[in-house]
Every structure is written in structure tokens, then in C-alpha cells.
């Protein structure tokens, strides 16, 4: 079959790889109808995520039709139309039973290795390095889905791929980020990053009834898209983020802050960004922390920092003093996708939200490698790319 494979920094190729096979009774093979490129894939593309191997099939946001099932996939049948959550869940371990699906204790087959790095490892993920199980990803014609009886969301035929595809990752990610904020009707929620995840954070915060939703980025068309969804936009190239947030909250700061940027944050004209880039180049620090620092600084005392943005390793110069003295709560994690999908599919079916608003580019899988560049450099107004194998 054809798939997008990782070969090193900036190097993704459309290649022929062996077809996946059923390896376990709970496996299923999905014939991919649509897949997407996620901001997390850019961290792989730039080789910020360790334990990738040349030839690994990437992609973790995908859906399609079940083509083949093992003996124990229960109510999952050949022909079912499914979205596949990017966090692989067994449904039986202690974490899964608590609904902490991204912390599944059984789906990461390289758990021993990952335990060494993280102390205790999280779930297996599709196409996201050997630290998360080394599973082949979904930017491919076919994918083997382990624990398929649990790791799927059945979707009705009446909805298009673009309407349901993001149930596998960015929609629940934005939603979880907002839910973790415990939004109250008087809250201002400030969201850093107007990428696809930031867009869903905005929609979720609006649906959950925040008084004010503010979004911070420097890409005008992304800010315009966030404004369309009900946010107040701050372009950090044009105005001071701190001053504007103060003004919007009568000098008190936003109660809730969301980091939808992650480890590659950048502000061209700030000193700490230069410092982080230098340290990263010297391999003294793996992640850039500008957004975290800014959030800790502006957040209202007693507030919540919700961090869906991905970090991989170490950061430096975290203002721990303010974090502690302001009594801030930090909530983060890979998304417990299955925890939210029933409710979110309900919202889509009711017509409360149509996630396809975020799709700006659609192309064949063979153009995928080039689309990584387009998405990365935000060319042609690119916000979200959907690929069709």
C-alpha cells in the first residue's frame, strides 16, 4: 500500500510499504477514506520528538471503513464506518476504567522504554514515535487498529468525512482543553495559538459559555477564523499581548489560559525566544517555553492553565515563583479522546457545530509531503489539510 513515511528532519515521503495484517484477535484493519495533518505531526517533521525511525508511517488523525476484523472485536464489524481516536485504548486497565484513555496502561507496547523516559508512560499512539508504541500511522491507505473493539467511534453515514474526521483528535483536544478550564459564565478564556487546535478551543469555550474568549497568534487569516467563531483576536506582531489582556479584563488578567501552541512557540521579537532557540540549538533545552511563561505571568491568581500543546522534554526558565504564589492550577495531557466523542458527535448531529469549517486544503495522499510544507509555513492561508488516500 501507499503511505507517508518519515525519514528525518523535514523529510516525509510518499512510499510503498507492506500492507498491515491482523496480528491480534482484537485488531481491525481500516481502509482509510480521509486523514489529516496535525500540528503534532509538525513536531515530528522538525524532529523534536525522539525515538522516530527512518521509514515509520506517520499520521494519527484518520477515518475509514473497517475492512477486516480479528476474532474478538465484539460489535465492530466489517463495513462499519469509523473514526479512529489517536490514543489507543484497551478499555480494561485501571486508567481506561477511570476514563483516562490517553494513559492506557496496556496499549503502549514499548512501555518499558517509555517508562524510563517519563517515569510512567502513557497510551500507545498511532504514528508518533517508538516511545508511544511505534504503531504505524494513518496517513496511509490502510491501518491496523489495535484494541479496535475499544479504539473506534462509529459515525453515521449522513455526515461527511470532514464533519466527523476531527473527532479523532483536534475537536476533543480543543474540547478537553476548555472543559479542563471549568468555565464559568463570567470567565475570560485566553487561548494562545489559532491553529486548528486553537480554533476548536475557541468553539468549545464559546459552547461552554465563557463570557469572553480571546485568541493570540500572528497569522491574520487564522485570527479572522477565530473571530468568526466568537473570539477577540490579539495579533502579537502588532500589539502587546500583556497590555491588551489587562485591558480586556479590567486589569485583573484572564481566569483561564490555554496553551494551544506547544513546544515550537515563537515570538520573533522577544528576548526569551532567542534564548530558547539558542539553547535548543545547543541541545541544552528541548522545548521552547515562551507561551508558558506568558500564561503564568498574565493569569489571574487562582486561575487555571490548560495545556493541550505538546511538549516533549525539558524547558528552562519557568517562573515557578509566580506559578506557586498565584496558586495556579495546571491541567494538561494527551486527549482522552473516547471520553468526549459521544457528546461531541451529539453536538455535530444536532447541528450545534460543524467541524468542517477548519478545512482549508484537500489533496490526494501523494501530495501529502508537499502539504507538510504548506501547513508548516502557513502558505495559501493553510489552516487544516485533509488528505485522501
Amino acid at each position, binding site marked *: 500500500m501507499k503511505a507517508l513515511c518519515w525519514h528525518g528532519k523535514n523529510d516525509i515521503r510518499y512510499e510503498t510499504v507492506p500492507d498491515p495484517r491482523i496480528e491480534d484477535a482484537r485488531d481491525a484493519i481500516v481502509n482509510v477514506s480521509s486523514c489529516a495533518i496535525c500540528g503534532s505531526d509538525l513536531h515530528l517533521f522538525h524532529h523534536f520528538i525522539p525515538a522516530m525511525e527512518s521509514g515509520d508511517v506517520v499520521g494519527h488523525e484518520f477515518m475509514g471503513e473497517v475492512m477486516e476484523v480479528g476474532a474478538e472485536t465484539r460489535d465492530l464489524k466489517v463495513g462499519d464506518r469509523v473514526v479512529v481516536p489517536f490514543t489507543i485504548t484497551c478499555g480494561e486497565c485501571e486508567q481506561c476504567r477511570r476514563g483516562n484513555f490517553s494513559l492506557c496502561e496496556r496499549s503502549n507496547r514499548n512501555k518499558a522504554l517509555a517508562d524510563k523516559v517519563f517515569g510512567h508512560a502513557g497510551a500507545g499512539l498511532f504514528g508518533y514515535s517508538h516511545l508511544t508504541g511505534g504503531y504505524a500511522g494513518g496517513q496511509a491507505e490502510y491501518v491496523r487498529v489495535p484494541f479496535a473493539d475499544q479504539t473506534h467511534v462509529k459515525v453515521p453515514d449522513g455526515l461527511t468525512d470532514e464533519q466527523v474526521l476531527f473527532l479523532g483528535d483536534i475537536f476533543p483536544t480543543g474540547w478537553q482543553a476548555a472543559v479542563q478550564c471549568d468555565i464559568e459564565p463570567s470567565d475570560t478564556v485566553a487561548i494562545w495559538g489559532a491553529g486548528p487546535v486553537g480554533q476548536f478551543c475557541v468553539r468549545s469555550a464559546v459552547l461552554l459559555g465563557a463570557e469572553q474568549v480571546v485568541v493570540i497568534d500572528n497569522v491574520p487569516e487564522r485570527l479572522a477564523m477565530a473571530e468568526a467563531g466568537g473570539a477577540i483576536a490579539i495579533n502579537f506582531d502588532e500589539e502587546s499581548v500583556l497590555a491588551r489582556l489587562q485591558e480586556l479584563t479590567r486589569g485583573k488578567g484572564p481566569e483561564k489560559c490555554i496553551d494551544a501552541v506547544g513546544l515550537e512557540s515563537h515570538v520573533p521579537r522577544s528576548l526569551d525566544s532567542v534564548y530558547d532557540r539558542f539553547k535548543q540549538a545547543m541541545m541544552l533545552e528541548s522545548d521552547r517555553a515562551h507561551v508558558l511563561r506568558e500564561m503564568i505571568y498574565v493569569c489571574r491568581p487562582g486561575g487555571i492553565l490548560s495545556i493541550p500543546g505538546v511538549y516533549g522534554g525539558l524547558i528552562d526558565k519557568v517562573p515557578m515563583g509566580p506559578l506557586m504564589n498565584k496558586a495556579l492550577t495546571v491541567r494538561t495531557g494527551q486527549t482522552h479522546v473516547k471520553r468526549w466523542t459521544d457528546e461531541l458527535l451529539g453536538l455535530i448531529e444536532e447541528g450545534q457545530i460543524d467541524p468542517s469549517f477548519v478545512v482549508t486544503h484537500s489533496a490526494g495522499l501523494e501530495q501529502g509531503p508537499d502539504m507538510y510544507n504548506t501547513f508548516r*509555513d502557513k502558505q495559501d492561508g493553510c489552516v487544516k489539510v485533509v488528505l485522501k488516500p
Partner: protein
Amino acid sequence: MNLDRRRSLQPSDRLARALGWLGIGLGLYQLLAPRSVTRSLGVEGAEAIVRTCGARGLATGMGALSVNPKQALWARSVGDVMDLAALLALLADRDHPKRGSVKLALAGVGACAAASLYCAQAQTRRHAYQGGRTPDYRGRSGFPRGLEHARGAAATRSGLPSRPMALPSPAHSPGPRFQTTPSRQRDTSGYTKGSDYDY
């Protein structure tokens, strides 16, 4: 340029890498063995300058290997042009003892400068941040029933099974519970110190 969309690395990306490694190699050579450079060009005594060039080559070489090599390539091109000027100045001296090797160096640096300039231009086009046509997304609210209808629409939906699990706090989530009965005090053989059981 005819783009092969099936690969993310295009010819100019590969050229940037080659220039990066070449820069690092030459830079190290100039840093570590400046004397052999000055001797072959007949400019003994200019070791400090050669070392500086080496450091410059090393820095721009590393930059050319980074995710976005555009700036490093422009810097490298400027450096090459400076080297060319210096070599031409040597050549202007008709009695220079090593005119042959200076000419050779000139050809080498000239070729690198040309490659570097070409590559810098190609990479600038390639990494054009926010380049191209930008459509208007002001109509993309994502709310089929309109923004005002959406505000708070999901806040009042209660009784949904996912909400009580919203927070990572185990006390509020469903699932198995550790036994915290008094028996814990009596029988500690089954517990590991420092685990959940150990308050």
C-alpha cells in the same frame, strides 16, 4: 522549478544540507589547521583570520542544517563574497608566490558562492512564511445555527456521562477504587511504600 510533491525534501533542500555539511567540514579544518591553509595560499601569519572564517563557516553550516536554512544561507553567501574579495586582492599582487593555489581557491569559493546564492534564493521562496494567496475566513464560524445561538449552548447540557470525568482527579472519576478500609493499617504486607496506599 518542477516540484515532486511526493517528497517533502526538494532539490534545493538537499543542496542546503550539502552546503551545510561542507561548511561545517571546511570550518572545522580552518579552525583546527589554519596553518596549512595559510601556507598553501602563501599568507603565513594570517591564521587568526582563517580561524575566524572557520568559525563563521561552522555557524552558517549548522544554520543551513536547521529546519529553516534561509537566513544561514544568505549569511553564508555574504561570507563567500567576502572570501572572494580577499582572494582577488591576493591575486592582484603579480609577485604573489602561490598564485596557482589562490586561483584554485578562487574557483572553489566562486562555485560555492554561486551555489549558496542560488540556494538562498530558492529557500527564501520555499519558506515564504504566510506566502501565497490568502482567502477570507470571516464566514467560517463553524456554528451552523449562528454564533449567538452557540454561546453557552453546551454549558447547560447536564447529566452527560463525560462531564463528571472532566477533571483528572480520581475522586471524581468512575472506575475502580483503592481499598481505604481500616484493614490497611493492620495488614500492610500487600502494599509498597510510596504507592497510592501509603498516605
